[in-house]
């Protein structure tokens, strides 16, 4: 017990009775309002423990008396957000793709929405700005394997490419070397021929006539006369300056002998129709693809 009977001579105040090296501590209590608020906070915290979910139990926790849950709060907030956005997303879902691009407000919404959805779902393969990479098409250019119109882009997003979806794009670059259709020197020859189609330099002494013959027999079916490509089959145009897997001889030889079959998942079912629409508009707006 502290002894309050000890009075300090200088100040006339009582001391706590504690003494260190001859120095005594004055008994200066905390202000009453301070002490009261201190006790109030303690009472408050006890109330808090009871009212809110607080105590961990072995496999769960106390639930509080109001049934409050922050998880439920989040769900409510998300619901409210959907409600706020509801009208706009509804308008987006109702409008045709072409109309969306014509209406500045809808276009802005679709681009904003599309951009976030693209970032979440497409960026891992196509890059955050759709720049693509080897084997993953650049979505900013004007070269489209399966067509670059709004509808065609939408269709590709919905059903994917070789995705297993019933309506997916199919089409295959055969493995001419691995499957033994063409021999090594034939592959080299046709690879050089393909380079010549795009105006790229060819290997010295390569037999263009032979290359043309091999191309006509094996490749024209998909890539078309003169290698102009075929969007029905996703067969790329071989005469332009854009190459998905590289245009150097080695890359072409690899492509011809091993084949190519990139896969893009179908997004139908994973994303709602309005969101897919927004994404199509966004992708189309990246380069205004044809």
């Amino acid at each position, binding site marked *: 017990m502290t002894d309050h009977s000890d009075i300090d001579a200088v100040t006339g105040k009582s001391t706590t009775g504690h003494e260190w090296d001859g120095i005594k501590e004055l008994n200066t209590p905390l202000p009453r309002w301070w002490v009261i608020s201190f006790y109030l906070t303690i009472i408050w915290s006890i109330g808090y423990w009871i009212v809110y979910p607080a105590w961990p139990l072995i496999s769960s926790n106390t639930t509080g008396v109001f049934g409050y849950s922050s998880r439920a709060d989040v769900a409510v907030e998300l619901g409210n957000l959907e409600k706020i956005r509801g009208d706009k997303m509804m308008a987006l879902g109702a409008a045709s793709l072409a109309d969306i*691009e014509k209406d500045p407000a809808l276009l*802005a919404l679709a681009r904003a929405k599309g951009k976030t959805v693209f970032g979440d779902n497409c960026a891992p393969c196509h890059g*955050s700005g759709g720049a693509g990479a080897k084997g993953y098409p650049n979505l*900013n*250019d004007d*070269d489209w394997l399966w067509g670059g119109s709004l509808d065609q882009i939408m269709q590709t997003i919905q059903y994917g490419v070789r995705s297993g979806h019933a309506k997916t794009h199919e089409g295959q670059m055969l493995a001419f070397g691995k499957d033994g259709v063409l021999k090594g020197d034939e592959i080299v020859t046709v690879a050089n021929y393909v380079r010549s189609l795009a105006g790229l330099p060819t290997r010295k002494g390569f037999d263009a006539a032979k290359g043309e013959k091999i191309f006509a027999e094996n490749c024209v079916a998909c890539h078309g006369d003169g290698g102009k490509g075929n969007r029905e089959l996703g067969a790329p145009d071989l005469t*332009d300056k854009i190459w998905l897997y590289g245009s150097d001889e080695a890359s072409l030889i690899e492509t011809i002998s091993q084949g190519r079959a990139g896969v893009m998942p179908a997004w139908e079912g994973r994303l709602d129709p309005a969101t897919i629409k927004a994404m199509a508009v966004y992708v189309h707006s990246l380069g205004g693809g044809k």
Partner: protein
Amino acid sequence: MNKTVNPKDLTSDDDYGPLYAARKKVYPQSVSGTFRRIKWGLMAFCLGVYYFLPFVRWNRGLGAPNQAVLIDLPNSRFYFFFIELWPQEVYYFTGLLIVAAVALFLMNSIGGRIWCGYLCPQTVWTDLFYAVERLIEGDRRERMKKDKSSDPMKLERISEIVLKHSIWLLIAWWTGGAWVLYFNDAPTLVKELVTFQAPMIAYVWIGILTATTYLLAGYMREQVCTYMCPWPRIQAALTDEWALNVTYRYDRGEKRTSVKKAAELRALGEQVGDCVDCYQCVAVCPTGIDIRNGPQMECIQCGLCIDACDNVMTKIGRPKRLIGYDNDINIQRRQEGKAPVYRIVRARTIVYSAIIAAIGGFMIYTLATRSLLDVNVLHDRNPVAVKLSDGSIRNAYTVRLLNKSGYDRVIAIDAHGPANATVHVIGVDSVTPDRPMIVIPRDSTSELRLLVTAPADSNQEKSIPVRFHVTDIGLGEVATATDNFVSP
């Protein structure tokens, strides 16, 4: 500071007390006089502006708010009569704050803490609250007596207290109410407030400001000036010997003695002062100090002690202004028998005025010449450049157009830089191939995606500057922005 003065003459020992003492309640007495009249006038003016400004209308045309002063947070606009500011123009507020700070310095170098004494909201509202208190509970003596009385509460006294606090709360509530009116159309908001339709945030703010006004002006009063406000301590560093401060002219006042005694002593040719030690100057002081103790941090220089003492001097037939606004130099000069000097134009005041004029002038200039059409350009980063199937190069930009005017604009965009480049805006069918035209609605921004395509070999450099011109087709107003055109 003054070598000729011994502080002991001016101050009693107990003025060098502890840094913090428990508050002694101040009971300022009512007073009349020049400075009191100035204070009433300024109070009426300041409160009038504060309470009624939101109701002033200003015609900005159809669809735009017609409130003269409006902080429109949801739409990020600030309206001040003919000025409309956008969020990116907050630097005007920075300028305004600088001007305000320097104006405070200027005031300080001329008249000490006249801001504190006459214009500070704390002073104005405290003064108002005192006026109410005085009206209901009576003047200084009565209030002291009522507070001291240990009588059981009489009904009369209780009703007085209730009335006082009700009126205080009413004023406080109106103060908070006026505040929120600056953030919304005032008449509408008033209607919503009385029918309980107003947004929650309005009620919250009114609550906060009601509480702070009531507490600060009703209870904290001079404590705010002495302990909470930093200005008394800062201004001490900014003031100089030429600044006019409320000063007890002790050279004239000492020795203090009664009127009768003074007359006798004067007749004997002895040195006596004019101060009759009536404590009127102390009684009226809202911060509860004795100005005769010399300059003090607590003094807000409201001049009320001047009025009080002037009244006394008139009554006893001595010249006025035993207490008056004076500077440090004159105290010394008068002691040396020299004529007082006053100097308002000096290096300090010239510099402050020049700063105010320069910043103010610059702000007015930029405000008058600011463009109502603006363009910002952001280059795509991923990819920076795209090669098209025919080998040409395309760069994409996000363009933000700002139309700050009150009418829709038809604008044309063209890009200068890459040779033979074409410009395309997503979602816009250009009639002229290289000059897309679009409409930006009034008072809004539009974000566009813009593609610039140039033939492969027309630009040898890896990166060349490109300049975007945005032209208002109708008015010919032009805004430009520069970026780069990059080749892969």
